[in-house]
Structures are given as C-alpha cells and as structure tokens.
C-alpha cells in the first residue's frame, strides 16, 4: 500500500495562490496528485488552476473532504497555517516552509490536537511513485515505483539517493523528507514504523545528517529488531562544531550530534553505513540479495 500518501490522498494546498504555491501545485497536478482544494485568506470563492479556493481550511475540508494538506505559506504565517489544518481535522499536514522559528514550532507541537501527523517543516514532502502521488517539491521525474522506502532529513541529497535507486531500477515505495528543522513533526522512528508494516517496502534507506539525536534513536529502534534491511548515510562528516550547516537542525552543539557518533550508532544497530551517497545502492542490493 506504500505509506502516508497514495491514491486516496485528497490534497489541500495552503497558500495556493502564492508564487511557491502556484509553481508547485502545477508540478503536483502534472505528476498526477489529486488536489481538491486551495486555501488563501480573502480569495475564497475563486478558482485557481482549476481548483476551488477557500478562505479557511475548515470550510475547504467541509466542502471537499480534503485529507492531506501541504503548506507553502511564508514563515511568519506558517505555524498558524499548520494549526489551522490540524484543528480542521486534517490527519496529515506537510509543511514545506523554511525558517519557522524553533520556539514557534515548539508551541505548535504543544498545541497540536491529538492524532495529527505533521511532516516538516522545511522539508521536501512525501512521494509515492506507484500511485503517482506527489505531495511536495521534489522533481517527480527522477522517481520510479519500487520497493525501497526512503527517509531523509535533506532535500536535494534525497534526490541524489532517489535518482541512484531509479537508475539502478530499484525505485521507491515512498520517499519522505522529514525536513531539516530541529523539531520535525515526524521523525525517523515514525517512518521506520510505517515502513515496517508496509507490504510494498522491502528495505529502507535512512539519510541523516549532523545535529540532534534522531539518528541515534532510530538506531536504538532498529537494534531492537527490524524485519527489513536498513541502509544509512550521514551528511556532515566535515562540519565544524557550533556552526549551523544551512538547516536549522544541522548543528553540532556541545560536542553532540556528530556524524561519527551517528554512524557508530547505525553500525552498532546493524544498519549498514554508506560513506558516500554512491554506496547506498550497492549496499542495498547486497542486503536484498
């Protein structure tokens, strides 16, 4: 069945009339995603790209039964947009927006109603090639239906791995960018759990990076027994401590969160570690043999 998004996905786009929202809505439509509604305050009642636009998410949900929302709203308004979707009863919210202050995200998490999954912020989104469902900003054409699940804190680095999987004809069941935020809504373990129960996934690639301890926790989770092979890669081997490497979450602080630590944690958990992105596919092939 793949995970998170599939043929049942009825997508709502928050900020559809903005430049980012417009560009990516077009690309998602092209790829085959079913976009049922757009939301832009004060533009309710109009049509845009052939999609009905509403003033509020709540109205859009009532009218269109949207069940996934994606957020292309500028950072100062994005936290509110996440909560708007969550409180309107949308169970899966994908936030693309970069630059939401960390403490705002903290308050969002603490204010979220139960049972809502947030992916991101500052993430490329989720894609399930087999059902032609793209909820994000990744280039659709590099994907191929397949049986490898991909989970990543990064954007373009994910594309690098995805493309390698596609070139090797392995393809992807679902590829998830959990995002470069220090407080992502969905973490590696959440995704590993979903892939564990997914019939269409045979193996998982985890693309981590420096900062935080999500990779270490994922390793602990896998160490307790995971039914499918897992391959890991960690970016940021050469990053100096105390410097933020682009992503708000990618920072080695207090000597913690180094690539070496994470790689060691992976290895100890039986996750095979690629030292270069190009090694992911060979390691996967080896594991799947």
């Amino acid at each position: 069945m793949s995970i998170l998004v599939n043929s049942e996905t009825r997508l709502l786009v928050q900020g559809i009339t903005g430049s980012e929202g417009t560009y990516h809505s077009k690309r998602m439509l092209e790829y085959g995603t079913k976009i049922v509604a757009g939301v832009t305050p004060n533009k309710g009642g109009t049509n845009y790209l052939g999609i009905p636009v509403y003033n509020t998410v709540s109205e859009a949900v009532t009218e269109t039964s949207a069940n996934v929302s994606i957020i292309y709203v500028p950072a100062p308004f994005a936290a509110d947009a996440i909560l708007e979707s969550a409180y309107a009863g949308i169970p899966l919210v994908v936030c693309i927006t970069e630059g939401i202050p960390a403490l705002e995200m903290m308050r969002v998490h603490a204010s979220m109603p139960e049972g809502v999954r947030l992916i991101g912020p500052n993430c490329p989104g989720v894609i399930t090639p087999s059902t032609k469902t793209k909820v994000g900003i990744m280039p659709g054409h590099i994907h191929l239906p397949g049986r490898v699940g991909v989970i990543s804190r990064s954007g373009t680095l994910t594309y690098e791995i995805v493309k390698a999987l596609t070139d090797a004809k392995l393809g992807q069941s679902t590829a998830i960018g959990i995002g470069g935020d220090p407080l992502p809504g969905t973490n590696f373990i959440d995704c590993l759990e979903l892939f564990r129960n997914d019939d269409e996934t045979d193996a998982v690639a985890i693309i981590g990076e420096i900062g935080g301890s999500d990779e270490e926790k994922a390793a602990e989770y896998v160490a307790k027994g995971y039914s499918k092979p897992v391959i890991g890669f960690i970016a940021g081997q050469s990053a100096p401590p105390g410097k933020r490497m682009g992503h708000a979450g990618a920072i080695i602080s207090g000597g913690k969160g180094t690539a070496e630590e994470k790689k060691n944690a992976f290895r100890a958990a039986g996750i095979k570690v690629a030292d270069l992105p190009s090694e992911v596919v060979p390691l996967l092939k080896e594991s799947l043999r």
Partner: protein
Amino acid sequence: MKIHEYQAKQLLASYGAPIPLGDVADTPAEVLKVWNRIGKGRVAVKAQIHAGGRGKGGGIKLAETEDEVLSSAKKIIGMNLVTHQTGPEGIKVRKVLVEEALEVKSEFYAGITLDRSSRSPVLMVSKFGGMEIEEVAAREPDSIVKMKIHPLSGLFQFQARELGYRLGLIGKPLQSAVRIFTAISKLFVEKDASLIEINPLFHLKDDRIVAGDAKIGFDDSALYKHEDIEALRDEFEEEPAEREARKANLSYVKLDGNIGCMVNGAGLAMATLDILKHFGGTPANFLDIGGGAKRERVKDALKIILTDKNVKAIFINIFGGIVRCDEVAHGVISAKKELGISVPITIRLTGTNEKEGRSMLESEGFATGVSLDEAAQKAVRSAA
C-alpha cells in the same frame, strides 16, 4: 546570532535578574569615567568579544587604582585577543565592560537550551560554575540538574525553587535564584533565544546571587520579530564573507580548506564537502544557494566564495529540481567572465534541464561530470 556579555547582562537586568554594577566603554577615558561612576572600587575590565576563554587570553584584568584601571583599559582595548575559540588570528577588542569586582562565596552554572527530544526548553544548573558545561558533564555529571520547561506555561515556581535548593540555597539567596531562573526562562521564550548561559552565576559573600558572566544566542530565523535584538548585532564579530552571505540571504560557513563549494540544498552541500574530503580534498566553505536559485544568485555566491583567498579551485554541485541546470550554467558562465574568475571550476549538474546546462558549459570549456564522485575527484585534482 550571538551578542556581547554587556548586552546580555543588560537584557538579563531588564528581565529582573541581578547583574554586577558596571558599564561598557570603548576608550580608556570612558573606562575611567565608568570606574568613577561606579564608586572607584576594585573592578574587572573585561574584553567584549563573542568568543569564550577571554581570561586566559589576557582579555580580563582586575584593577583597583586609577593607574591600574587606565593601564588595563589601554592594554585590552585594541588588543588582538586570541583564545581557544577565536582561532589563531584572534579578534580585535573594541569595547570593554568595566564592572565592580565582587566578593564571591561560590560559583554556579545556569543555562537554557532547547531540548529537541522533549521539544521544550531545558534549564540546567550545576554547583560547578566557571568551567564549560561540557567539562562539568564529563567531570561532575551528577552535579548537573536539568529541568524541562513547559513549552506553553513556562517555568513553574516550584521548579525554580527546586533548582535553587539543589544548588544548596535557602531563604533569601534561594529567592534571588528563583528570580533569576524565572527571568532567563521568560527571556529565552520571549526573545526566541537558542542559548542562555550564566556562567559563572555568583553566590556572593553577602548572600546575593548575581550573574558573573552572560552569554546569549538567538535563533536567526526569529530575528525578524525582534528589532531590539537585531540591533545588538556586532558586524565586526562576523567573518566578512559570512556577513555578505547573510545579507544576500545565502547560507555560508567558512572552513579552512582550499576548494570553494557551491551546492543547492543543505544536506547535499554537507555531503559534497564530505565527498571532497573522502577523495583527499579540503573544502574552503559550506554554501547552500537554496531552492529556485537564479543566475544572479549564482554570481553572488561565487563572489562570496572568492572573498576567501585560500580558494584554489571551485566545485559546483547542483541537483536540479526547482533550480534549473541551464539557469545555473548561465549564471556560472557570465559570472566567470564578469568576475574574471581565474581558479579552475568543476561543475556537476544533474536533474531538471541537465543536458542543456551541460552542453552550454562544455562549449565554454568547463569541466563537467555526470557522477558526483567523478566530478568531486576532478575538483580535488584541480586544487592540488
């Protein structure tokens, strides 16, 4: 963004946390004035630079007489202060904080950071102040008491009291400690800080509790909400290239190698540095030109990379998604001409419009590579 000790202390005071009597000055004459104003007693003259380890580097001096104060001021203002955090080149001291010297009974540590796992700020205290918290964690791990701050309600009074009791305080000093913990918790959240450290936190002989030093870092993403904090920025403390990058809204970190790097996407940029290192190269910088970069942005990025005189070669790695490869190619070709770039440039382009981009570049004589590994090796060779 970091701020200076004197700025951090003023902020703390505005939140009701007690700080020593003192003021900032940028000339020896001003230093003397401050010394007069605060009572002509024993003072500390403290170099105001962002890096830690100022004491060992000679950036903090005690003085008691007018002569001593003046000579300390003269020594420190204008000096090139080298500490373990400045790098060997050091930082020029432009301002000093002149502060009453206090009779200290003991030195504590108090700090707040955002804890990712619990998604809440965590307030930490230790009886062992005056050294770095990592050092305390290694030497006296049991001395560190951590308290999760409720993400919406803030620090509860009982938590502040408990931290105070765990430092062995009781009565009046306990109340002071509670006030300080409450103040820094509030400041942390209201001003979108990423780190607050009061280290040392002094317990004075007269039982007052006072911030001995103060270090505050702010979340760059939140600065747009806080003009008062943005106004505290000291551009002298920034790498000139990092300052330019910030203004151009590019994510740049200077490193100490010789291959200038330009990549789209933070994760891919980190991985690119790793790959260069793997093949024996040394990256000169991290630079993420971000999503949807246009040709002008490519030029800005190259300009910033070239401000670093160590750069012997440039490696460009673009995975076209929103960014179109031909657009990047265009930017590189025109930048090379306009900026007169003489160092070799190796480019790896893939994704959206990669063929168009690559053929444009090849016809201009650029070295391109399809596979990342291959291109990276080429770049390493070009810098050798």
